[in-house]
C-alpha cells in the first residue's frame, strides 16, 4: 500500500481537477471534494505512514513505543477534513442557490459578471 499511495494520490488529484474542469455545477463540487481527499492523503503519505499502530498510549504505559504512526499529521488532517467539510457544505448550498438563480447546470453560463461587454 505504501507504494501504491503516491499513485492513488496522483489519480485522485487528476480526477478532481478533471471534474472541476467540466462545466457542471455538481461535477465541480465533486471535484473539489476529491481534491480534498487527495490533499489529505498527500499530507498523510508524505509524513510517512506506519501500518496498524495508532498513536494511542497503551493502558499501562505512559508513552508510546516505536513503531507508532506520527500523530501530528493525523491531527492536521483531522482539522483539514473538518474545515473542508464546512467549506464544502457551504459550497454545495451555494451551488444549489446559484442554480436556482441562474436556472442552469452549465458553469459556462456564469459569465455575466466578468466578461467584458462589447
Amino acid at each position, binding site marked *: 500500500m505504501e507504494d501504491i499511495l503516491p499513485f492513488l494520490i496522483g489519480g485522485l488529484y487528476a480526477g478532481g481537477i478533471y471534474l472541476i474542469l467540466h462545466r457542471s455545477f455538481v461535477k465541480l463540487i465533486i471535484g473539489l471534494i476529491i481534491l480534498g481527499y487527495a490533499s489529505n492523503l498527500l499530507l498523510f503519505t508524505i509524513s510517512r505512514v506506519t501500518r496498524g499502530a*495508532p498513536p*494511542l498510549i497503551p493502558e499501562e504505559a505512559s508513552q508510546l513505543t516505536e513503531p507508532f504512526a506520527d500523530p501530528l499529521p493525523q491531527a492536521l488532517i*483531522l482539522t483539514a477534513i*473538518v474545515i473542508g467539510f*464546512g467549506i464544502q*457544505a457551504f459550497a454545495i*448550498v451555494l451551488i444549489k442557490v446559484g442554480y436556482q438563480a441562474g436556472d442552469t447546470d452549465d458553469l459556462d453560463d456564469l459569465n455575466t459578471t466578468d466578461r467584458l461587454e462589447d
Partner: protein
Amino acid sequence: MNSTILSTGIRILIPLFLLFSLFLLFRGHNAPGGGFVGGLVASIGFALYAINYGAERARRRFYLRPLKLIAWGLLIAVLSGIIPLIAGETFMTGLWYDEISIPLLGKPGTPILFDIGVYLLVAGTILGIIFSLWEE
C-alpha cells in the same frame, strides 16, 4: 417520510446516538473519539428526526436554536482558553485539577472543557445546516 416503521426506529435510535456521542466525547482524550466526532454523532440523531418529521417539528423538538448552540460552544471553548490566563498561565494552557478523578471524565481539566465546547458547536453546526436545508 411518513413511515411508522422509520419513525419508531428513529425514536429508538435517538437516545442511542446521544448516548454514544457522550461516550465518544468523554473518552476522546484517551481513545479515538472526542468533541468533534461526538458532536457529529449527536447531531445525526436529530438529523434523522428532521428527515422523517420535517425540520419544523425537529426544531421544536430540539428546542435549542442551533445558533445558540454554536455560540455557547464557541464561548465555552474560548473560556477554556481564558481560564488559564486567570491562573497566570498562557492562553489555552491545559489546567488539570488533580485532586479528584471522576470515573467518566477522568481528571477535570480545561482541555476537557474545550472538547465540550467543540462538541456543542459541532452539533449546532450540523443541525443548523440540516434544519436550514430541510425547512425550505
